[in-house]
């Protein structure tokens, strides 16, 4: 399988994503410069973390207009898998690939491990996980407070588009377990077609015990199991 990792000016988790895909999963990968017009046959596109365009205006707002994003949106419209991680999630929301918006945290920048609960396994990113499985992965962001209107939140819940929720050690989505004030403890969502998934935690930084957690692996393994190359 071939992963395309988009590199914007200001991306800083592109190498981590590369390492996860190439060194851990032994898959093909290609770095896609933001000015490129071709996904080079990528089966899965990763929008990595970082501060694309310095987060000017709003996180993801300018990156959305990079030439490569036209191809990423076309890939998604064809049913191709797109995964947005952290800043990549912000970019996917700004590009209207995903619903909602990610606002400034209610308590400043947070860099810490968090635990999320897998709410749905019917996405390419979570198919190999168990429903209710808890995953510990790092977050590092200042703008991760998932926000949408109450009506939209109800619709997302109803359609099963909430994929990850911040939970405490007992698996409950409490206020104390919510690192950024996200509506309903939402840490990740998918689109209605379920082929685009965005999340604030970093699975690519949780691939081996040396990094403090291997819980990100099951998400990448889900991609391998569900996406046909």
């Amino acid at each position, binding site marked *: 399988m071939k992963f395309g990792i988009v590199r914007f000016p200001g991306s800083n988790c592109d190498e981590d994503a590369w390492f996860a895909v190439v060194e851990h999963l032994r898959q093909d990968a290609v770095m896609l410069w933001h000015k490129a017009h071709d996904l080079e046959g990528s089966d899965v596109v990763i929008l990595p973390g970082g501060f694309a365009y310095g987060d000017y*205006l709003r996180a993801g*707002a300018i990156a959305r207009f990079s030439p490569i994003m036209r191809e990423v949106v076309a890939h998604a419209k064809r049913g191709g898998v797109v995964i947005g991680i952290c800043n990549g999630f912000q970019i996917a*929301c700004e590009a209207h690939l995903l619903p*909602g918006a990610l606002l400034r945290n*209610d308590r400043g920048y947070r860099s810490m491990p968090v635990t999320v609960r897998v709410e749905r396994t019917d996405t390419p990113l979570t198919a190999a996980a168990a429903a209710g499985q808890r995953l510990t992965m790092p977050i590092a962001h200042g703008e991760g407070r998932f*926000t949408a*209107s109450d009506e939209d939140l109800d619709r997302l819940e109803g359609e099963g588009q909430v994929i990850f929720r911040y939970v405490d050690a007992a698996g409950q989505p409490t206020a104390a377990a919510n690192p950024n*004030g996200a509506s309903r403890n939402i840490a990740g969502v998918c689109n209605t077609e379920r082929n685009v998934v965005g999340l604030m935690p970093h699975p690519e930084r949780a691939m081996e015990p040396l990094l403090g957690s291997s819980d990100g692996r099951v998400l990448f393994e889900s991609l391998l199991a569900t996406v046909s190359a």
Partner: protein
Amino acid sequence: MKFRVPVDVLPRRGILDPQGKAVTDALHTLGFSAVDEVHVGRHLVIELAADSEAAAREAAAGMCQKLLANPVTEDFVIGAPEAA
């Protein structure tokens, strides 16, 4: 003609604005107890060419809808264009 169009983009009312809350709290600490709320957004000045003031305003509205404001969480107010 050249115009300068001022635009204010503010967090939508009812959506938590942590910057605004932090500033409000600081003002209260300084003794400005009459302050109810502060909203922190951004002010942009767009310098552009347009045929009329109305056209300048309309162009700015299009920019806000497409890029300058996030329709999910922000509102924008376009001020009176000035001839530049």
